[in-house]
């Protein structure tokens, strides 16, 4: 997995609450059996004026000029600033795949849906949680200052603002370690393979009906 340590990235503000994973990547693109190539269809219904289907040449589709990702000042953004309960709804990991493929490395919001939050860490994306008033401040500054960038330091758990101010954020120790070191979860778990076997054997003796096939 891709490591995450320091990011100095351009911020794009998506001023909506409850952005669901159907909006992040609509269902017609879930038919792919690959992990990559979802970026051009990130926020497809909002981003384009026509109806997107798999296999289309996205570069020739009409863009929605009112959608924030299409504003030239936010081109190349790596930080998505948004509102509460981001990523609610479906468990589709295609949502973080699409964000990552588009170039988003970190998201900043006041809260996330649980499954989406977990899925981000599996894909090298850092979902930062800040307080509502801090989020409000970042929205104001992003709108006021062109090419607004933030420096996100995972090991220090800080975000540095252009005026020199710092915001602290909390993150679970284990998740932080995995992201900093780019650890392969499965490899980590298989270190405990004997423990899993022992548990399983014991369970099978105790509750054999769970092992019927």
């Amino acid at each position: 997995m891709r490591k995450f340590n320091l990011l100095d990235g351009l911020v794009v503000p998506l001023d909506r609450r409850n952005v669901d994973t159907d909006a992040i990547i609509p269902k017609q693109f879930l038919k792919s059996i690959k992990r990559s190539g979802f970026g051009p269809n990130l926020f497809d219904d909002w981003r384009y004026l026509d109806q997107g289907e798999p296999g289309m040449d996205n570069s020739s589709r009409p863009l929605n000029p009112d959608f924030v990702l299409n504003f030239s000042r936010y081109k190349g953004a790596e930080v998505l600033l948004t509102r509460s309960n981001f990523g609610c709804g479906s468990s589709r990991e295609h949502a973080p795949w699409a964000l990552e493929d588009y170039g988003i490395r970190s998201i900043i919001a006041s809260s996330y849906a649980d499954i989406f939050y977990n899925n981000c860490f599996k894909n090298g994306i850092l979902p930062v949680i800040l307080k509502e008033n801090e989020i409000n401040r970042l929205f104001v500054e992003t709108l006021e200052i062109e090419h607004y960038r933030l420096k996100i330091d995972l090991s220090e758990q800080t975000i540095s603002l252009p005026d020199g101010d710092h915001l602290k954020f909390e993150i679970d120790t284990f998740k932080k370690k995995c992201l900093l070191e780019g650890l392969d979860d499965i490899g980590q778990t298989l270190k405990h393979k004997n423990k899993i076997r022992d548990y399983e054997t014991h369970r099978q003796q105790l509750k054999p009906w769970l092992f019927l096939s």
Partner: protein
Amino acid sequence: MAGKTLYDKLWEDHLVHQEDGASLIYIDRHLVHEVTSPQAFEGLHIAGRKPWRVASILAVPDHNVPTVADTQISDPISRLQIETLDKNCQHFGINEFGMHDIRQGIVHVIGPEQGATLPGMTVVCGDSHTSTHGAFGALAFGIGTSEVEHVLATQCLLQHKSRNMRISVSGSLQPGVTPKDVVLAIIGEIGTAGGTGYAIEFAGRVFESMSIEGRMTVCNMAIEAGARSGMVAVDDKTIDYFEGRPFAPTGTLWKDAVKEWKKLYSDEDAVFDLEITLPGEQITPLITWGTSPEMVVPVTGKIPDPETMPEDKRESALNALSYMDLDPETVVSDITVDKIFIGSCTNSRIEDLRDAAAVVKGRKVADNIMLALVVPGSGLVKRQAEQEGLDKIFIDAGFEWRNPGCSMCLAMNDDRLEPGERCASTSNRNFEGRQGAGGRTHLVSPATAAATAIAGYFTSANLLSTRLH
């Protein structure tokens, strides 16, 4: 020391190892479908790994399958996804109910139907509606594709324990009020993020009197309240439900299992981090008016006015009303409907179909309804309904009687809304574009969907009877 909640008991029973605050949890049953598994199997192949315990896996195609009899999948991309599932299952020797198996259906319908998901199990699936299986005292939750691969490779998941929430619905329900109305009322009350970080136990008199299928409807939508898992304690109904199911134990194993299952309840002195109580009598048939499942009003009510809402809700409400093409203060029963969808992992079980058929019987679908679909949750639900003559009731009224699958809940097959069309749907999500780009979804119970089909505008089964008599 305080007692344990049902969730605490299930969690502790599956704990393999703890490290840095993360817990390794053992998974008893892994359900797999075609949309969220191909990349996980590919990951296994690349790493040269094999599934840890093949017998724990049950696979079924459901999201992409056509619901019109004997149709091949016209879309080559959908077809490839289903063929990929078939191929992966064959390669690893995984039990799969293929597209033409009578047992095929929506993964969350067939699991309990087969007894493949049982009380006391941990159940996961690459699908957020896995919370359904909590209805019978299982710890069940949806996972992403990386986690699907993790469970395939290790039979375990790295998790953080959620906090405990109990939602009690006291008293009893009025006639004509269904489990779908109960869960919509709960989401309306706590909001779509109200359950984030929690495991929710549903309790109280209303749940005690509710059928297992009704409990599945409620637990199914726990995720719509933000909770990865919802659950109900085991009682005699739970045990009766599973007796004789194909994957359920028999003989002495059955007796031993039942003894264990009877321990699956929250201790009287268990402490919950959050307790919420709703009086059952106050719940009425509900409908969603917006693009989030928390935007609910009674069928007898009016569309709310965003100007009267707190500031943090106003903008979302304005967006929703604009997308739904509705004005504040519109009387709900003045809103006409284009399509009806009865189906999905929320409401496609035999009881749901019976509820809807009871309303439809001897009546005709209104002229303005362009399409009224009934999509049973599984081949076996379909067969049961046909044995009871429900198919005839629906067909005589002007409904289409289809083959099982996820269908118009998320429109990955050919069943969908066209831009601007309005649908009364028994599914679980009313997000923008969920049932087809530009489509407008109103979530309702099967009884309300049926009554709305007959009236042509939103109405409940009770109101429909009053109108006709």
